[in-house]
C-alpha cells in the first residue's frame, strides 16, 4: 500500500486521493510521472525499511542532500541542520564523513530516517521505520516523528509493535 501511494508500484485499480499544497486534490494512482517526481520533491517523503543510498556519499552529505535540494538554504545552514539531526540520533561525529555502507544496521537505519525527515516533508510514508533499531534509538526516532507532527507533517506508518504504534498514532488501520 505504501509503495502504491509513493507510486513505486502502479496500482492496478483504485485511487489515491491526496490534497497537495502545489496541485490541490489529485489522484496519485494516475498522476503523470513528472508530477509524481515533483510531489516527491516538494511534499512526499518515504522511509524504507533499510537504507538504500547512493554509494560513495558520506553520511553527512546523505542527510544534507535533501535539505539543499529542497529547502533553498545555504550549504552552511544545511550542514548545521544535518549535523543537529545526526547528533540527535546519536551518530558519533567521527562517522559523519564516512560512507554509510560501512555502518552497522542500526546506524544505517538512523541515517535513513535522518535523510527522510531532514527536509520536513508534508506527507511522510514510513515502512517499519524502527524495526532494526535498539530500544534507545527507537525513543530518539519517535521523538523526532512527534516533533515533525507538531510542525504539520502528516504520516502514514507501518508498525508491528502495537504498543509503540499507539504511542505515536491518532488512528490505526488494520489489514489482514
Amino acid at each position, binding site marked *: 500500500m505504501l*509503495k502504491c501511494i509513493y*507510486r*513505486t*508500484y*502502479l496500482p492496478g485499480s483504485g485511487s489515491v486521493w491526496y490534497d497537495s499544497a502545489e496541485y490541490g486534490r489529485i489522484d496519485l494512482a494516475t498522476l503523470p510521472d*513528472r508530477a*509524481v*517526481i515533483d510531489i516527491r520533491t516538494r511534499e512526499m517523503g518515504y522511509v524504507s525499511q533499510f537504507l538504500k543510498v547512493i*554509494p*560513495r556519499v558520506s553520511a553527512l552529505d546523505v542527510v544534507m542532500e535533501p535539505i539543499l535540494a529542497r529547502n533553498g538554504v545555504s550549504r552552511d545552514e544545511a550542514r548545521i541542520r544535518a549535523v543537529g539531526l545526526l547528533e540527535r540520533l546519536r551518530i558519533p561525529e567521527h562517522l559523519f564523513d564516512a560512507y554509510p555502507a560501512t555502518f552497522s544496521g542500526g546506524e544505517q537505519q538512523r541515517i535513513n530516517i535522518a535523510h527522510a525527515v531532514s527536509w520536513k516533508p508534508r506527507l511522510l510514508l514510513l515502512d517499519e521505520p524502527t524495526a532494526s533499531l535498539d530500544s534507545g534509538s527507537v525513543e530518539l526516532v519517535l521523538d523526532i516523528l512527534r516533533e515533525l507532527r507538531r510542525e504539520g507533517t502528516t504520516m502514514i506508518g507501518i508498525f508491528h509493535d502495537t504498543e509503540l504504534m499507539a504511542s505515536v498514532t491518532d488512528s490505526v488501520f488494520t489489514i489482514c
Partner: protein
Amino acid sequence: MEPLIRIRGLSKRFGNGCHRCLSATGPEFETNMCPHCGSVVACNDVSFDLYKNEALGIVGESGSGKSTLVRLLHFEWDATGGSMEIHRDAGLNVMQELFGDRDIYSRNLLGLSPFQKRQMRNALMGIVYQNPFLGLRMNVSSGGNIAERLLGAGWRNIGRMRERAAELLEKTEIPLDRMDEPPKNFSGGMQQRVQIAKALSNNPLILYLDEVTTGLDLSVQARVLDLIRTLQSEYKLSLLVVSHDLGVINLLCQRTMVMKYGRVVEAGLTDQILQDPQHKYTQLLVASQL
C-alpha cells in the same frame, strides 16, 4: 513546468521500406527487420519529453534502437519521421528565428539545414560515446580536442581556449600536466573523462550519454558516474542516459524508457520500472539483473 525539448513520433528506417514494415516488426514479432522488404525499422514512433536538469534513462538490449535514437537527436543521422522541438525559454542564444511569434516551442529541429543543425548542436548539445574513438581524436592533445570543439562553437582566442580546456579538464579530474598529451596515452576511464570535458566545453543544455561506463572496470565506472552526477547538478544539465545496465540507470535517472525492437515498450518512474515492471520484457530485464 514545461519540457525543455519535446520529441514526437521519432522514427528511423534503413532501407526503402514498404507498406507492411510497421505491421510486421516490433516486440510482438521479435524482429526489427521487415520480412517483406528487408528494411530495418531501427526505431519507430518514439515520443517523450525531456525537462531541464532531468536525467531520463533509456534501457534495452543491443539492437533495441537506443543508440539510433541518440544519433537522430544529435543530428548524426537523418530521421525518417518525427519531430524535435525546443522550448523558447531554454536559454538558447542563437537562432531566435526558429520560434514563431506566439509559439512556445520552436519549429521541428530535425528539418533544419545541415548548417543550422551544426549551429544548434553547438549551442545545445554534448555527447559522450561508449567508444572514446568516436568522441576524441586520439592523436591530438587533450587540450587540443577541447579547443577543436570550441573553435566549432565560434571561439577564436587561443589563450582563452586553453584556459577553458584547463578548467574543464580539472573539473573532470585530469591532471593538468597531462593536458598536452593525446588521449591515446590514457586509460579507458581517463579517456571517458576527457570526452566528458569535451562534451561540456560549449556549455550544453543537453548531454547525451551513450553507454559511457560500458567496458570500464567497476571502480572506474563508479568514478565516472560520480563525476556525471556532480556535473549534472552543477550545470543543471538535462541528461539522456542510454545504457543496458539497470544499475547505471537507477543511479542517475528518475524516469526511464524501456526499448525493444525499435519500440518503447514501457516508460515510467525508475523505481517503478525496477520494482513493478509492467511489460513482460521489462520483467525479464529486471529479473536478469546481477
